[in-house]
């Protein structure tokens, strides 16, 4: 058991490629933290620096209270599960799982006991005498997990451990991982590019990006906070499926308040409580963001003040494609300058297409971003 503290860490490969820069993450004892971001943003690099597989170019990493910058991987009291599992092909499952314990001079009897206990928990008891190539992908994944568990390390490191499994197995294994963590309560750092995996697994998630030419941390928070209050446009667009609708436009002032206006038909009146923080942006470019679930059908006869309402705006869209999902439908529509806005609405069999439809936009879930790919969130 140990907390992990990553301070101002940067990695420069071979004196040239700056892979990540200024990573700061404090991971509490027993916490499950997920590093998530698109491919190439430096998640693995960061994880491998914690593991000791890559030298730390700048900054410090502490595991527990110990500075580990110059500590060999084997002395960091960690266990790692690799994307390709990295099972030793020439050893049986039993040998694979016990290898680390044997190297630590544990008596054979105790090794067997631990390996068998872990195998029992993971349901791979029957496979102990097999070689990895005689196992299915899911079974190999369990062996890799078992090899980490038997060591009883103070930190688990996972690098995309589920990405080689098929979709269904990925979801069930995800749940098992979460249960495992609840039982063992071992500090865990988990790397994935899958935002759904990150949201479901993490106590907190660390969203990273590579967009500025170097891997960077964009936001560190609980999944719900990151989802509801994304710090910038990148984070907003990365988390959530279908992704958040983001439309570029301008901030305009009229006598009754501030409006987002894309000048092609999408006009949204911002809530008055944000007036002070937005007023300096009037006349400048901004982008509006709202999740598919922030919209609902505009009920017939709903009272509509001529100048919009405080907490709900009416927007006009032209639905083009309907995707039924059971309880809900995903409606792809054109809306102002945006050619593809997705609205997730309550299911209705006769939802009209190719004609103008009014939707209600819940202002509590509307974001306004400064211009640019990484434009900051101006109101949340």
């Amino acid at each position, binding site marked *: 058991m140990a907390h992990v503290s990553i301070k101002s860490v940067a990695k420069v490969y071979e004196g040239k490629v700056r892979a990540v820069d200024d990573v700061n993450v404090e991971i509490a004892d027993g916490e499950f933290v997920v590093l998530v971001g698109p491919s190439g943003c430096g998640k693995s690099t960061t994880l491998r620096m914690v593991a000791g597989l890559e030298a730390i170019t700048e900054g410090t990493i502490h595991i527990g209270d110990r500075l580990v910058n110059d500590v060999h991987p*084997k002395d960091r009291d960690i266990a790692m599960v690799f*994307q*390709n599992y990295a099972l*030793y092909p020439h050893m049986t499952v039993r040998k694979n799982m016990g*290898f680390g314990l044997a*190297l630590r001079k544990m008596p054979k009897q105790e090794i067997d006991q631990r390996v068998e206990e872990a195998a029992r928990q993971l349901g791979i008891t029957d496979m102990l005498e097999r070689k990895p*190539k005689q196992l299915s*992908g899911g079974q190999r994944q369990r062996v890799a997990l078992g090899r980490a568990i038997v060591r009883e390390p103070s930190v688990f490191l996972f690098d995309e451990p589920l990405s080689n499994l098929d979709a269904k197995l990925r979801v069930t294994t995800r749940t098992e991982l979460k249960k495992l963590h609840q039982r063992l309560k071992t500090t865990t750092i988990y790397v994935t590019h899958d935002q759904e995996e990150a949201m479901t697994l993490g106590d907190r998630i660390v969203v990273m990006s590579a967009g500025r030419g170097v891997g960077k941390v964009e936001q560190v928070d609980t999944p719900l906070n990151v989802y509801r209050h994304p710090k910038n446009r990148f984070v907003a667009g990365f988390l959530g499926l279908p992704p958040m609708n983001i439309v570029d436009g301008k901030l305009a002032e009229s006598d009754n308040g501030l409006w987002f206006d894309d000048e092609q038909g999408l006009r949204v009146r911002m809530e008055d409580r944000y007036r002070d923080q937005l007023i300096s942006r009037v006349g400048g470019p901004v982008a509006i963001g709202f999740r598919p679930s922030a919209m609902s059908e505009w009920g017939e006869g709903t009272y509509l003040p001529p100048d919009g309402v405080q907490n709900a705006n009416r927007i006009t869209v032209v639905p083009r494609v309907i995707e039924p999902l059971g309880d809900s439908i995903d409606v792809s529509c054109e809306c102002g300058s945006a050619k593809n806005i997705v609205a997730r609405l309550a299911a209705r069999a006769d939802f009209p297409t190719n004609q103008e439809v009014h939707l209600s936009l819940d202002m509590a879930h509307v974001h306004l971003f400064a211009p640019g790919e990484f434009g900051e969130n101006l109101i949340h």
Partner: protein
Amino acid sequence: MTKPASIQPVAGAPFTPGRKPKKAAPDTSPIEASSKLSRTLVFVGLVLLGMTFVVPFVWQVLIALTENPSEVDTLTRTGMPPAIEPGNFAKVFQRVDFAKYFFNSLFIASWATILQVITCSMAAYAFSRIQWPGRDKVFLLYLGTLMVPGVVLMVPNFAIVLGLGMFNDYTGLIIPAAFSAYGTFLLRQFMLTIPSSLDEAASIDGAGHWRIFSQIILPLARPGLIVLAIFAFLFNYNSFFWPLILTKDDNLRTLPLGLLQFDSTYGPETNLIMAASLMAMLPPIILFIVLQKYLVKGIQLGAVKG
């Protein structure tokens, strides 16, 4: 000697889960007759090719069984051995110190092989699995020595060995053969196909370089080690020129040098040469038969379902 290319995908295969061996499509061609014909042609071609390997061997056996060197002529003309004489094999041992040559060849080739596999695998590990500054440049330099023709190196090598006091000594025959740029290259290429996550997992598990080398990399590189062992053994076992210039005493001579003796005093005794070389062929053949099991196993690894 382009073995590495054929080994690479084999070593890589076991680590790619889900890769299925491609099965040849069943032959359901409508033009069955013509495919039968072409298959017959291929078969005939293979038989002819096989003959070119077998005939000289049979010839060699026949000559080895011929009693009198002068009768080899008759054999050449008629194709029939005049008199079968299995005693030639014993005669080889009486005429020269064949047992000693045999021992020398085996002794030198075995040591050279063992040492070469050890040094090459360690060098290959350093060139493929450890990051150090200038690594790939040093490797290229080492590989570059392969481009220099052997004859060019003969004299300087001789001078060095002489200077080290290894002339006319087993050490002079073994030590220079204990290192090989080619073998290092072969094993390095092989080791590059082993995923680095295995070393990383092992080092997190608590292994240092020595243990990763001996318990992870070496077992996985076994097919490569065996190929190198066979090459190294054959090369040193057959080596002629280096032992020739480096030995003075008869009791240091190796088999290829020993065979020369039947070609000197009384004119060429072809039947004895053939008998001796037949016996000399045995160790490489036995070696190959013993090791090919592992060789084939290694190559088959790729065929087993990922």
